[in-house]
Protein backbone atom coordinates (compact mmCIF):
# COMPACT_ATOMS: atom_id res chain seq x y z
CA UNK A 1 0.00 0.00 0.00
CA UNK A 2 2.71 2.42 0.99
CA UNK A 3 4.43 1.80 -2.33
CA UNK A 4 1.28 2.93 -4.11
CA UNK A 5 1.07 6.05 -1.98
CA UNK A 6 4.69 6.82 -2.72
CA UNK A 7 4.19 6.93 -6.51
CA UNK A 8 0.96 8.90 -6.31
CA UNK A 9 1.65 12.17 -8.18
CA UNK A 10 1.24 15.54 -6.52
CA UNK A 11 -2.22 17.10 -6.97
CA UNK A 12 -0.88 20.53 -7.88
CA UNK A 13 -2.10 21.36 -11.38
CA UNK A 14 1.00 21.93 -13.52
CA UNK A 15 -1.03 24.20 -15.85
CA UNK A 16 -2.19 26.54 -13.04
CA UNK A 17 0.83 28.88 -13.11
CA UNK A 18 0.59 29.35 -16.86
CA UNK A 19 -3.14 30.06 -16.73
CA UNK A 20 -2.67 32.64 -13.98
CA UNK A 21 0.03 34.24 -16.09
CA UNK A 22 -2.31 34.55 -19.08
CA UNK A 23 -5.08 36.01 -16.92
CA UNK A 24 -2.74 38.68 -15.53
CA UNK A 25 -1.43 39.48 -19.01
CA UNK A 26 -5.00 39.93 -20.26
CA UNK A 27 -5.83 42.32 -17.38
CA UNK A 28 -2.64 44.33 -17.92
CA UNK A 29 -3.47 44.67 -21.62
CA UNK A 30 -7.14 45.53 -21.03
CA UNK A 31 -6.59 48.17 -18.35
CA UNK A 32 -5.07 50.88 -20.60
CA UNK A 33 -7.82 50.20 -23.18
CA UNK A 34 -10.43 50.91 -20.51
CA UNK A 35 -8.66 54.17 -19.59
CA UNK A 36 -8.52 55.10 -23.26
CA UNK A 37 -12.27 54.56 -23.57
CA UNK A 38 -12.89 56.79 -20.52
CA UNK A 39 -14.26 53.85 -18.58
CA UNK A 40 -14.30 54.74 -14.86
CA UNK A 41 -16.58 52.32 -13.01
CA UNK A 42 -16.06 54.17 -9.71
CA UNK A 43 -17.84 57.33 -10.91
CA UNK A 44 -20.97 55.27 -11.49
CA UNK A 45 -21.07 54.50 -7.79
CA UNK A 46 -20.50 58.07 -6.52
CA UNK A 47 -23.51 59.03 -4.27
CA UNK A 48 -24.51 62.10 -6.31
CA UNK A 49 -24.44 60.18 -9.58
CA UNK A 50 -26.34 57.29 -8.04
CA UNK A 51 -29.09 59.68 -7.00
CA UNK A 52 -29.44 61.11 -10.52
CA UNK A 53 -29.53 57.63 -11.96
CA UNK A 54 -32.09 56.60 -9.34
CA UNK A 55 -34.54 59.41 -10.12
CA UNK A 56 -34.16 58.72 -13.81
CA UNK A 57 -34.81 55.01 -13.40
CA UNK A 58 -37.74 55.70 -11.04
CA UNK A 59 -39.42 57.55 -13.88
CA UNK A 60 -39.42 54.34 -15.89
CA UNK A 61 -41.82 52.70 -13.45
CA UNK A 62 -44.55 51.84 -14.04
CA UNK A 63 -44.38 51.46 -17.83
CA UNK A 64 -46.95 53.50 -19.72
CA UNK A 65 -50.16 51.59 -20.45
CA UNK A 66 -52.21 54.40 -21.96
CA UNK A 67 -54.51 52.88 -24.65
CA UNK A 68 -53.61 55.50 -27.25
CA UNK A 69 -49.91 54.96 -26.67
CA UNK A 70 -50.29 51.17 -26.75
CA UNK A 71 -52.03 51.40 -30.12
CA UNK A 72 -49.18 53.52 -31.40
CA UNK A 73 -46.69 51.08 -29.90
CA UNK A 74 -48.36 48.13 -31.63
CA UNK A 75 -48.19 49.85 -35.04
CA UNK A 76 -44.56 50.81 -34.47
CA UNK A 77 -43.72 47.23 -33.44
CA UNK A 78 -45.29 45.89 -36.61
CA UNK A 79 -43.39 48.45 -38.70
CA UNK A 80 -40.08 47.49 -37.10
CA UNK A 81 -40.80 43.78 -37.55
CA UNK A 82 -41.76 44.41 -41.16
CA UNK A 83 -38.54 46.37 -41.83
CA UNK A 84 -36.43 43.64 -40.24
CA UNK A 85 -38.22 40.77 -41.98
CA UNK A 86 -38.34 42.37 -45.41
CA UNK A 87 -34.70 43.41 -45.01
CA UNK A 88 -33.60 39.89 -44.07
CA UNK A 89 -35.65 38.38 -46.89
CA UNK A 90 -33.94 40.64 -49.44
CA UNK A 91 -30.57 40.01 -47.80
CA UNK A 92 -31.23 36.25 -48.12
CA UNK A 93 -31.92 36.62 -51.83
CA UNK A 94 -28.64 38.52 -52.24
CA UNK A 95 -26.66 36.16 -50.00
CA UNK A 96 -27.61 32.71 -51.32
CA UNK A 97 -26.06 32.97 -54.81
CA UNK A 98 -22.99 34.72 -53.39
CA UNK A 99 -22.54 32.05 -50.71
CA UNK A 100 -22.90 29.20 -53.20
CA UNK A 101 -20.40 30.82 -55.55
CA UNK A 102 -17.92 31.38 -52.72
CA UNK A 103 -18.09 27.85 -51.27
CA UNK A 104 -14.97 25.85 -52.03
CA UNK A 105 -16.55 22.49 -51.15
CA UNK A 106 -18.75 22.79 -54.25
CA UNK A 107 -15.85 23.41 -56.60
CA UNK A 108 -16.05 20.97 -59.49
CA UNK A 109 -12.56 22.06 -60.52
CA UNK A 110 -11.20 20.53 -57.29
CA UNK A 111 -11.73 17.09 -58.87
CA UNK A 112 -10.72 18.34 -62.35
CA UNK A 113 -10.67 19.66 -65.03
CA UNK A 114 -7.63 21.27 -63.54
CA UNK A 115 -7.51 24.14 -66.03
CA UNK A 116 -10.87 25.37 -64.70
CA UNK A 117 -9.32 25.81 -61.29
CA UNK A 118 -7.91 29.33 -61.65
CA UNK A 119 -11.23 30.53 -63.06
CA UNK A 120 -13.07 29.18 -60.02
CA UNK A 121 -10.51 30.71 -57.68
CA UNK A 122 -10.83 34.09 -59.39
CA UNK A 123 -14.62 33.95 -59.20
CA UNK A 124 -14.57 33.03 -55.51
CA UNK A 125 -12.14 35.86 -54.76
CA UNK A 126 -14.34 38.33 -56.66
CA UNK A 127 -17.42 37.16 -54.76
CA UNK A 128 -15.57 37.48 -51.43
CA UNK A 129 -14.63 41.05 -52.33
CA UNK A 130 -18.26 41.84 -53.15
CA UNK A 131 -19.44 40.49 -49.79
CA UNK A 132 -16.78 42.54 -48.01
CA UNK A 133 -17.91 45.66 -49.86
CA UNK A 134 -21.54 44.96 -48.98
CA UNK A 135 -20.93 44.63 -45.27
CA UNK A 136 -18.09 47.14 -44.79
CA UNK A 137 -20.51 50.09 -44.53
CA UNK A 138 -22.75 49.93 -41.42
CA UNK A 139 -26.49 49.72 -42.18
CA UNK A 140 -27.09 53.00 -40.32
CA UNK A 141 -24.93 54.83 -42.87
CA UNK A 142 -26.83 53.29 -45.77
CA UNK A 143 -30.08 54.22 -43.99
CA UNK A 144 -28.99 57.88 -43.68
CA UNK A 145 -28.08 57.84 -47.36
CA UNK A 146 -31.37 56.28 -48.47
CA UNK A 147 -33.41 58.60 -46.23
CA UNK A 148 -31.78 61.46 -48.12
CA UNK A 149 -32.46 59.80 -51.44
CA UNK A 150 -35.94 58.33 -51.04
CA UNK A 151 -37.29 60.32 -48.11
CA UNK A 152 -38.29 59.29 -44.58
CA UNK A 153 -39.91 55.89 -44.12
CA UNK A 154 -39.35 52.17 -43.75
CA UNK A 155 -38.18 51.60 -47.35
CA UNK A 156 -34.82 53.19 -46.54
CA UNK A 157 -34.39 50.80 -43.61
CA UNK A 158 -35.27 47.76 -45.70
CA UNK A 159 -32.73 48.62 -48.39
CA UNK A 160 -30.02 49.40 -45.87
CA UNK A 161 -30.56 46.06 -44.11
CA UNK A 162 -30.65 44.15 -47.39
CA UNK A 163 -27.23 45.45 -48.45
CA UNK A 164 -25.29 45.08 -45.19
CA UNK A 165 -26.97 41.88 -44.05
CA UNK A 166 -26.74 40.38 -47.54
CA UNK A 167 -22.96 40.62 -47.22
CA UNK A 168 -22.96 39.21 -43.67
CA UNK A 169 -25.23 36.28 -44.52
CA UNK A 170 -23.19 35.43 -47.64
CA UNK A 171 -19.95 35.37 -45.66
CA UNK A 172 -21.23 33.25 -42.80
CA UNK A 173 -23.32 30.93 -45.03
CA UNK A 174 -20.28 30.04 -47.09
CA UNK A 175 -18.20 29.56 -43.93
CA UNK A 176 -20.83 27.25 -42.44
CA UNK A 177 -21.02 25.29 -45.69
CA UNK A 178 -17.24 25.00 -45.86
CA UNK A 179 -16.94 23.78 -42.28
CA UNK A 180 -19.26 20.86 -43.01
CA UNK A 181 -17.81 17.52 -44.11
CA UNK A 182 -17.02 17.90 -47.84
CA UNK A 183 -17.00 14.18 -48.67
CA UNK A 184 -20.74 13.69 -49.35
CA UNK A 185 -20.88 16.64 -51.77
CA UNK A 186 -17.61 15.69 -53.41
CA UNK A 187 -18.78 12.10 -53.89
CA UNK A 188 -21.88 13.42 -55.68
CA UNK A 189 -19.83 15.74 -57.89
CA UNK A 190 -17.59 12.79 -58.64
CA UNK A 191 -20.64 10.87 -59.86
CA UNK A 192 -21.53 13.63 -62.30
CA UNK A 193 -23.94 15.65 -60.18
CA UNK A 194 -24.22 19.41 -60.67
CA UNK A 195 -23.20 21.96 -58.05
CA UNK A 196 -26.73 22.85 -56.95
CA UNK A 197 -27.78 19.22 -56.66
CA UNK A 198 -24.60 18.46 -54.68
CA UNK A 199 -25.46 21.38 -52.40
CA UNK A 200 -28.98 20.11 -51.76
CA UNK A 201 -28.17 16.42 -51.37
CA UNK A 202 -24.65 16.56 -49.93
CA UNK A 203 -24.11 19.77 -47.99
CA UNK A 204 -27.43 21.15 -46.78
CA UNK A 205 -28.39 18.04 -44.76
CA UNK A 206 -25.15 18.56 -42.80
CA UNK A 207 -25.45 22.31 -42.35
CA UNK A 208 -29.20 23.05 -42.30
CA UNK A 209 -29.56 23.59 -38.55
CA UNK A 210 -26.52 25.89 -38.37
CA UNK A 211 -27.76 27.90 -41.34
CA UNK A 212 -31.26 28.27 -39.91
CA UNK A 213 -30.17 29.25 -36.43
CA UNK A 214 -27.72 31.80 -37.82
CA UNK A 215 -30.43 33.25 -40.07
CA UNK A 216 -32.85 33.59 -37.16
CA UNK A 217 -30.12 35.21 -35.05
CA UNK A 218 -29.46 37.66 -37.89
CA UNK A 219 -33.19 38.42 -38.01
CA UNK A 220 -32.98 39.23 -34.31
CA UNK A 221 -30.05 41.56 -35.03
CA UNK A 222 -32.04 43.07 -37.90
CA UNK A 223 -34.87 43.89 -35.47
CA UNK A 224 -32.38 45.80 -33.28
CA UNK A 225 -30.86 47.48 -36.33
CA UNK A 226 -34.33 48.47 -37.52
CA UNK A 227 -34.90 50.14 -34.14
CA UNK A 228 -31.65 52.09 -34.43
CA UNK A 229 -32.50 53.16 -37.97
CA UNK A 230 -35.80 54.46 -36.63
CA UNK A 231 -33.77 57.16 -34.86
CA UNK A 232 -32.64 58.48 -38.23
CA UNK A 233 -36.11 58.49 -39.71
CA UNK A 234 -36.86 54.97 -40.86
CA UNK A 235 -39.96 54.75 -38.67
CA UNK A 236 -41.09 52.08 -36.22
CA UNK A 237 -40.02 51.56 -32.62
CA UNK A 238 -36.84 53.61 -33.00
CA UNK A 239 -38.76 56.71 -33.99
CA UNK A 240 -41.15 56.17 -31.08
CA UNK A 241 -38.23 55.73 -28.68
CA UNK A 242 -36.65 58.89 -30.06
CA UNK A 243 -39.84 60.82 -29.34
CA UNK A 244 -40.17 59.33 -25.85
CA UNK A 245 -36.60 60.22 -24.89
CA UNK A 246 -36.62 63.69 -26.42
CA UNK A 247 -40.03 64.41 -24.90
CA UNK A 248 -38.90 63.19 -21.43
CA UNK A 249 -41.56 60.46 -21.15
CA UNK A 250 -39.60 57.67 -19.43
CA UNK A 251 -42.74 55.60 -18.82
CA UNK A 252 -43.24 55.24 -22.57
CA UNK A 253 -39.55 54.49 -23.12
CA UNK A 254 -39.97 51.77 -20.51
CA UNK A 255 -42.90 50.16 -22.38
CA UNK A 256 -40.89 50.27 -25.58
CA UNK A 257 -37.96 48.57 -23.84
CA UNK A 258 -40.30 45.80 -22.70
CA UNK A 259 -41.26 45.26 -26.35
CA UNK A 260 -37.54 44.97 -27.26
CA UNK A 261 -37.18 42.29 -24.64
CA UNK A 262 -40.26 40.44 -25.90
CA UNK A 263 -38.98 40.54 -29.50
CA UNK A 264 -35.62 38.99 -28.58
CA UNK A 265 -37.46 36.37 -26.55
CA UNK A 266 -39.59 35.64 -29.61
CA UNK A 267 -36.55 35.27 -31.87
CA UNK A 268 -34.99 32.91 -29.35
CA UNK A 269 -38.13 30.77 -29.23
CA UNK A 270 -38.37 30.60 -33.04
CA UNK A 271 -34.74 29.54 -33.27
CA UNK A 272 -35.23 26.86 -30.63
CA UNK A 273 -38.30 25.41 -32.35
CA UNK A 274 -36.66 25.41 -35.79
CA UNK A 275 -33.52 23.74 -34.47
CA UNK A 276 -35.63 21.06 -32.83
CA UNK A 277 -37.52 20.46 -36.07
CA UNK A 278 -34.30 20.20 -38.11
CA UNK A 279 -32.19 18.23 -35.62
Amino acid at each position, binding site marked *: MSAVAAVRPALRDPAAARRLGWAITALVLLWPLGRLADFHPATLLAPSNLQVLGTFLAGYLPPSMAPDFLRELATATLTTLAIATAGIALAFVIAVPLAIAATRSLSVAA*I*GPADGRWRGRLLRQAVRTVTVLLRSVPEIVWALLFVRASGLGPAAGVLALAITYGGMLAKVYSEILESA*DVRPARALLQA*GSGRLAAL*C*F*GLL*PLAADELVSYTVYRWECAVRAAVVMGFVGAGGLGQLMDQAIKGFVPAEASSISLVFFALVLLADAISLVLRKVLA
Partner: protein
Amino acid sequence: MTLHLDKVGVVHANGRRALAGIDLVVAAGERVALIGPSGAGKTTLLRVAAASLRPTEGHANVLDADPWTLGAGALKALRARVGFVHQAPPIPPRQRVVTAVLAGRLGQWGLGRALRSWVAPADAAGARDALARVGLAERLFERCDQLSGGQLQRVAVARTLYQAPRLLLADEPVSALDATTADAVLRELVAYSESAGATFVASLHAVDLALRWFPRIAGVRDGVVMFDLPAAQVTPERLAALYAGEVAAERERPVQSLPHVTLPLGST
Protein backbone atom coordinates in the same frame (compact mmCIF):
# COMPACT_ATOMS: atom_id res chain seq x y z
CA MET B 1 -12.47 -1.47 -73.67
CA THR B 2 -13.79 0.07 -70.50
CA LEU B 3 -10.58 1.11 -68.91
CA HIS B 4 -7.22 1.65 -70.48
CA LEU B 5 -4.39 3.01 -68.37
CA ASP B 6 -1.26 3.64 -70.41
CA LYS B 7 1.95 4.23 -68.43
CA VAL B 8 -0.04 6.13 -65.83
CA GLY B 9 1.93 7.83 -63.09
CA VAL B 10 0.65 10.08 -60.32
CA VAL B 11 2.75 12.41 -58.21
CA HIS B 12 0.65 14.19 -55.58
CA ALA B 13 0.89 17.93 -55.05
CA ASN B 14 3.05 17.35 -51.96
CA GLY B 15 5.64 15.59 -54.12
CA ARG B 16 4.84 12.07 -52.98
CA ARG B 17 4.67 9.55 -55.80
CA ALA B 18 1.59 7.29 -55.66
CA LEU B 19 1.68 5.50 -59.00
CA ALA B 20 4.40 4.79 -61.58
CA GLY B 21 4.08 3.32 -65.07
CA ILE B 22 0.74 1.59 -64.58
CA ASP B 23 -0.43 -0.33 -67.66
CA LEU B 24 -3.87 -1.78 -67.17
CA VAL B 25 -6.45 -2.76 -69.77
CA VAL B 26 -9.86 -3.91 -68.58
CA ALA B 27 -12.43 -5.13 -71.10
CA ALA B 28 -16.15 -4.42 -70.88
CA GLY B 29 -17.84 -6.68 -68.32
CA GLU B 30 -14.55 -7.85 -66.80
CA ARG B 31 -14.05 -8.09 -63.04
CA VAL B 32 -10.67 -7.18 -61.55
CA ALA B 33 -9.65 -7.07 -57.90
CA LEU B 34 -6.77 -4.87 -56.78
CA ILE B 35 -4.91 -6.26 -53.81
CA GLY B 36 -1.78 -5.18 -52.04
CA PRO B 37 -0.51 -3.66 -48.80
CA SER B 38 -2.02 -0.41 -47.54
CA GLY B 39 -0.42 2.65 -49.10
CA ALA B 40 0.32 0.73 -52.29
CA GLY B 41 -1.62 3.18 -54.48
CA LYS B 42 -4.87 1.22 -54.93
CA THR B 43 -7.08 4.19 -54.02
CA THR B 44 -5.16 6.54 -56.30
CA LEU B 45 -5.48 4.04 -59.14
CA LEU B 46 -9.23 3.84 -58.59
CA ARG B 47 -9.53 7.63 -58.56
CA VAL B 48 -7.71 7.83 -61.87
CA ALA B 49 -10.09 5.18 -63.23
CA ALA B 50 -13.06 7.20 -61.91
CA ALA B 51 -11.94 10.26 -63.91
CA SER B 52 -11.70 12.25 -60.70
CA LEU B 53 -7.92 12.44 -60.54
CA ARG B 54 -5.84 13.52 -63.51
CA PRO B 55 -2.69 11.41 -63.89
CA THR B 56 0.50 13.46 -63.95
CA GLU B 57 2.06 11.02 -66.45
CA GLY B 58 0.63 8.77 -69.16
CA HIS B 59 -2.94 8.48 -70.40
CA ALA B 60 -6.13 7.23 -68.82
CA ASN B 61 -8.98 6.16 -71.06
CA VAL B 62 -12.29 5.69 -69.27
CA LEU B 63 -15.34 4.23 -71.06
CA ASP B 64 -13.68 4.91 -74.42
CA ALA B 65 -13.02 8.57 -73.70
CA ASP B 66 -10.05 10.55 -72.47
CA PRO B 67 -11.68 12.43 -69.59
CA TRP B 68 -9.01 15.12 -69.58
CA THR B 69 -9.67 16.28 -73.12
CA LEU B 70 -13.44 16.51 -72.60
CA GLY B 71 -15.36 19.70 -71.99
CA ALA B 72 -17.05 20.23 -68.61
CA GLY B 73 -20.44 18.93 -69.78
CA ALA B 74 -19.07 15.79 -71.42
CA LEU B 75 -16.87 15.05 -68.40
CA LYS B 76 -19.92 15.35 -66.15
CA ALA B 77 -21.83 12.94 -68.38
CA LEU B 78 -18.89 10.51 -68.30
CA ARG B 79 -18.70 10.67 -64.51
CA ALA B 80 -22.42 9.92 -64.30
CA ARG B 81 -21.66 6.55 -65.95
CA VAL B 82 -18.99 5.65 -63.38
CA GLY B 83 -20.15 4.34 -60.00
CA PHE B 84 -17.88 4.51 -56.98
CA VAL B 85 -18.37 2.72 -53.66
CA HIS B 86 -16.22 4.58 -51.13
CA GLN B 87 -14.49 3.01 -48.16
CA ALA B 88 -16.48 5.24 -45.77
CA PRO B 89 -20.07 5.90 -46.91
CA PRO B 90 -20.22 9.58 -48.00
CA ILE B 91 -23.80 10.06 -46.80
CA PRO B 92 -25.02 12.89 -44.54
CA PRO B 93 -26.35 11.35 -41.31
CA ARG B 94 -29.50 13.48 -41.27
CA GLN B 95 -30.60 12.41 -44.72
CA ARG B 96 -33.34 9.86 -45.23
CA VAL B 97 -32.31 6.52 -46.71
CA VAL B 98 -34.56 7.00 -49.73
CA THR B 99 -32.98 10.39 -50.54
CA ALA B 100 -29.47 9.01 -50.10
CA VAL B 101 -30.17 6.22 -52.59
CA LEU B 102 -31.90 8.47 -55.13
CA ALA B 103 -28.87 10.79 -55.05
CA GLY B 104 -27.15 8.06 -57.11
CA ARG B 105 -28.82 9.35 -60.27
CA LEU B 106 -28.17 13.08 -59.77
CA GLY B 107 -25.66 12.92 -62.60
CA GLN B 108 -28.34 11.63 -64.96
CA TRP B 109 -31.17 13.86 -63.78
CA GLY B 110 -31.60 17.46 -64.75
CA LEU B 111 -31.64 20.09 -62.04
CA GLY B 112 -35.45 20.27 -62.10
CA ARG B 113 -35.91 16.58 -61.35
CA ALA B 114 -33.14 16.70 -58.75
CA LEU B 115 -34.79 19.57 -56.87
CA ARG B 116 -38.22 17.92 -57.09
CA SER B 117 -36.73 14.73 -55.69
CA TRP B 118 -35.12 16.75 -52.91
CA VAL B 119 -38.57 17.91 -51.80
CA ALA B 120 -40.36 14.58 -52.33
CA PRO B 121 -38.72 11.30 -53.46
CA ALA B 122 -39.06 11.08 -57.26
CA ASP B 123 -38.62 7.32 -57.54
CA ALA B 124 -39.27 5.65 -54.19
CA ALA B 125 -39.93 2.31 -55.91
CA GLY B 126 -36.52 2.37 -57.60
CA ALA B 127 -34.83 3.19 -54.31
CA ARG B 128 -36.67 0.34 -52.60
CA ASP B 129 -35.60 -2.16 -55.26
CA ALA B 130 -31.97 -1.08 -54.90
CA LEU B 131 -32.19 -1.35 -51.11
CA ALA B 132 -33.80 -4.79 -51.38
CA ARG B 133 -30.62 -6.06 -53.03
CA VAL B 134 -28.62 -5.22 -49.91
CA GLY B 135 -31.37 -6.40 -47.55
CA LEU B 136 -32.48 -2.98 -46.32
CA ALA B 137 -35.77 -2.44 -48.18
CA GLU B 138 -37.74 -1.93 -44.98
CA ARG B 139 -35.50 0.98 -43.87
CA LEU B 140 -36.55 3.09 -46.89
CA PHE B 141 -37.97 6.07 -45.01
CA GLU B 142 -35.71 6.01 -41.97
CA ARG B 143 -32.95 8.49 -41.37
CA CYS B 144 -29.40 7.42 -42.05
CA ASP B 145 -28.27 8.26 -38.50
CA GLN B 146 -30.54 5.47 -37.27
CA LEU B 147 -28.51 2.87 -39.15
CA SER B 148 -25.36 1.13 -38.01
CA GLY B 149 -22.07 1.79 -39.80
CA GLY B 150 -22.38 -1.45 -41.74
CA GLN B 151 -25.96 -0.71 -42.77
CA LEU B 152 -24.93 2.75 -43.93
CA GLN B 153 -22.27 1.21 -46.14
CA ARG B 154 -24.95 -1.05 -47.62
CA VAL B 155 -27.06 2.07 -48.33
CA ALA B 156 -24.05 3.50 -50.18
CA VAL B 157 -23.84 0.27 -52.19
CA ALA B 158 -27.58 0.53 -52.95
CA ARG B 159 -27.01 4.11 -54.15
CA THR B 160 -24.34 2.92 -56.58
CA LEU B 161 -26.53 0.07 -57.79
CA TYR B 162 -29.36 2.58 -58.34
CA GLN B 163 -26.97 4.73 -60.36
CA ALA B 164 -26.59 1.72 -62.70
CA PRO B 165 -23.07 2.63 -63.86
CA ARG B 166 -21.26 1.12 -66.85
CA LEU B 167 -18.04 1.09 -64.86
CA LEU B 168 -18.34 0.07 -61.22
CA LEU B 169 -15.42 0.98 -58.97
CA ALA B 170 -15.13 0.15 -55.29
CA ASP B 171 -12.46 1.17 -52.79
CA GLU B 172 -12.40 -1.33 -49.92
CA PRO B 173 -16.21 -1.57 -50.15
CA VAL B 174 -16.62 -4.22 -47.46
CA SER B 175 -13.79 -3.52 -45.02
CA ALA B 176 -16.25 -2.17 -42.42
CA LEU B 177 -18.66 -5.10 -42.71
CA ASP B 178 -18.72 -8.40 -40.85
CA ALA B 179 -17.64 -11.42 -42.86
CA THR B 180 -21.11 -12.71 -43.76
CA THR B 181 -22.42 -9.30 -44.83
CA ALA B 182 -19.20 -8.54 -46.71
CA ASP B 183 -19.66 -11.69 -48.71
CA ALA B 184 -23.34 -10.92 -49.41
CA VAL B 185 -22.61 -7.35 -50.51
CA LEU B 186 -19.87 -8.50 -52.88
CA ARG B 187 -22.25 -11.08 -54.28
CA GLU B 188 -24.75 -8.30 -55.07
CA LEU B 189 -22.13 -6.09 -56.71
CA VAL B 190 -20.90 -9.05 -58.79
CA ALA B 191 -24.49 -9.97 -59.70
CA TYR B 192 -25.10 -6.41 -60.86
CA SER B 193 -21.94 -6.36 -62.96
CA GLU B 194 -22.90 -9.70 -64.54
CA SER B 195 -26.53 -8.83 -65.28
CA ALA B 196 -25.74 -5.32 -66.59
CA GLY B 197 -22.52 -6.29 -68.31
CA ALA B 198 -20.79 -3.58 -66.29
CA THR B 199 -17.07 -3.64 -65.65
CA PHE B 200 -16.18 -4.03 -61.97
CA VAL B 201 -12.85 -3.02 -60.45
CA ALA B 202 -12.48 -3.16 -56.67
CA SER B 203 -9.66 -2.88 -54.19
CA LEU B 204 -9.93 -5.41 -51.38
CA HIS B 205 -8.04 -6.02 -48.19
CA ALA B 206 -9.34 -9.56 -47.83
CA VAL B 207 -7.45 -11.68 -50.34
CA ASP B 208 -9.90 -14.56 -49.98
CA LEU B 209 -12.83 -12.40 -51.03
CA ALA B 210 -10.83 -11.17 -54.00
CA LEU B 211 -9.99 -14.71 -55.10
CA ARG B 212 -13.57 -15.88 -54.63
CA TRP B 213 -15.39 -13.13 -56.51
CA PHE B 214 -12.91 -11.88 -59.10
CA PRO B 215 -11.53 -13.90 -62.03
CA ARG B 216 -8.62 -11.52 -62.43
CA ILE B 217 -6.33 -10.20 -59.71
CA ALA B 218 -3.88 -7.33 -59.91
CA GLY B 219 -1.30 -7.10 -57.14
CA VAL B 220 -0.23 -3.51 -56.46
CA ARG B 221 2.74 -2.52 -54.36
CA ASP B 222 4.67 0.77 -54.10
CA GLY B 223 2.68 2.31 -56.97
CA VAL B 224 3.40 -0.41 -59.54
CA VAL B 225 1.50 -3.51 -60.67
CA MET B 226 3.53 -6.48 -59.41
CA PHE B 227 1.36 -9.10 -61.09
CA ASP B 228 -1.85 -9.16 -63.13
CA LEU B 229 -3.09 -12.74 -63.34
CA PRO B 230 -6.15 -14.99 -63.43
CA ALA B 231 -7.18 -15.78 -59.86
CA ALA B 232 -6.11 -19.41 -60.23
CA GLN B 233 -2.51 -18.41 -60.88
CA VAL B 234 -2.15 -16.26 -57.78
CA THR B 235 0.13 -18.46 -55.71
CA PRO B 236 0.93 -18.16 -52.00
CA GLU B 237 4.49 -17.24 -52.99
CA ARG B 238 3.27 -14.28 -55.06
CA LEU B 239 1.02 -13.17 -52.19
CA ALA B 240 3.89 -13.47 -49.73
CA ALA B 241 6.06 -11.31 -51.98
CA LEU B 242 3.23 -8.79 -52.45
CA TYR B 243 2.58 -8.43 -48.75
CA ALA B 244 6.18 -8.82 -47.53
CA GLY B 245 6.55 -6.80 -44.35
CA GLU B 246 2.80 -6.30 -43.88
CA VAL B 247 1.11 -7.74 -40.80
CA ALA B 248 -0.58 -10.83 -42.21
CA ALA B 249 -3.35 -10.94 -39.63
CA GLU B 250 -4.72 -7.65 -40.88
CA ARG B 251 -5.65 -8.82 -44.36
CA GLU B 252 -6.93 -12.21 -43.28
CA ARG B 253 -9.08 -11.05 -40.38
CA PRO B 254 -12.42 -10.60 -42.18
CA VAL B 255 -12.40 -14.12 -43.54
CA GLN B 256 -11.27 -16.02 -40.44
CA SER B 257 -14.80 -16.35 -39.11
CA LEU B 258 -16.36 -17.48 -42.39
CA PRO B 259 -17.19 -21.14 -41.86
CA HIS B 260 -17.60 -22.28 -45.43
CA VAL B 261 -14.62 -20.63 -47.06
CA THR B 262 -12.43 -22.83 -49.15
CA LEU B 263 -9.09 -21.20 -49.71
CA PRO B 264 -7.89 -21.82 -53.24
CA LEU B 265 -4.46 -20.65 -52.16
CA GLY B 266 -2.80 -24.08 -52.05
CA SER B 267 -4.46 -25.43 -55.17
CA THR B 268 -1.91 -24.20 -57.67
